[in-house]
């Protein structure tokens, strides 16, 4: 299990009860594996932190974060870091941000 910092940006905190910064202790979903991935963190957040079921669609669609949410690990786009399979270490910062469209 790992302890990571999580931040919700671009208004995504609204989906998580107004929480902007939090710390999570995440277990690996696959028990054969010691490693914890962002996929495990996403599941953890969906299970533990979304209190209102109708908000689920604002975070997860088709088994991963919905289109329009960018994920960053230690301020780096997860696309450069294996996306869902990115392995997390203690102290890592994972940022989730909604894409904004206003002008």
């Amino acid at each position: 299990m790992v302890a990571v910092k999580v931040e919700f940006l671009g208004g995504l905190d609204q989906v998580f009860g107004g929480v902007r910064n939090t710390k999570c202790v995440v277990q690996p979903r696959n028990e054969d594996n010691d490693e914890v991935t962002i996929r495990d963190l996403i599941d953890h957040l969906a299970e533990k932190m979304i209190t209102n079921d109708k908000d689920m669609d604002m975070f997860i669609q088709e088994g991963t974060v919905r289109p329009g949410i960018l994920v960053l690990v230690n301020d780096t786009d997860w696309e450069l870091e294996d996306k869902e399979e990115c392995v997390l270490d203690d102290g890592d910062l994972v940022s989730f941000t909604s894409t904004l469209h206003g002008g």
Partner: protein
Amino acid sequence: MSLDEDEYSRYGRQMQVPAFNALNGQIGLKQSKILVVGCGGLGSSALLYLAASGVGCIGVLDHDRVELSNLHRQIIHETSTIGMLKTESACQRIKALNQNITVNIHSLFLSNQNAYNIFQKYDLILDCTDNPITKYLISDTCVASKKPLVSASSVKTDGQLMILNYQNGPCYRCIHPKPTKPENIATCSDDGVIGPCVGLVGTLMSIESIKILTNYYNEETNPFKPIMLMYSGYMANDGQMLKSFKMRGKMLNCLCGKMNKEMIQNINYTQFCGKIDYDVLNNTHSIDF
């Protein structure tokens, strides 16, 4: 190209900043033609600072007219220009600030039929619009016409900025291959916006534009790397925050590899972004940049 005495006096203070690149930087601005799409909250501060800095030619594009409800944030307009086309109102203010600037007015609705021909006349595009349909269209057109793009958005107290299609970096589609579903989008009119917060993001845009036009990002001393700036204006008792995220480069599987004028004219952007967006686009409040 050179500067006259008045120009030295007007721009001297910025030419003294080492990173600005002195006379070459100023001439870089003077020779440049930029297009600002959207004369709203982002466009207001971006236009004022780019005009003040001495960009040679500025195109302003907007189909909308100034409304009273714009004025808490759209500081390029004023009470007496309510009802005027935003392009005309912005032009008037730009000229008052700096009569050296050539202003091209495009009072129209940007579409996949007219975008390419308009963009061709410019060196740099600023996306100050407020809806995904236009954001995809602007990015695709920048790719097809080989123009760098400073793209930003702001809602409530937050904002985002990316430099796209620049020095072989990503396009908007590389970052956002699938559009946000319409029902997941918050717009200014739903959520409101703090005037100086969107203004700050427009100011960030003007600074990144000046960097591009003065060759601050260059292979020799400071090569461009894709980033996203994320701004939050109301951070409880931490004040305000601006973070820089390191972003992906151009994606091999992205449409931008084969984007061209004809393809753009055949894309149904409304359908791509989702049905409900069609309504968003026809609601004058929601497309109020």
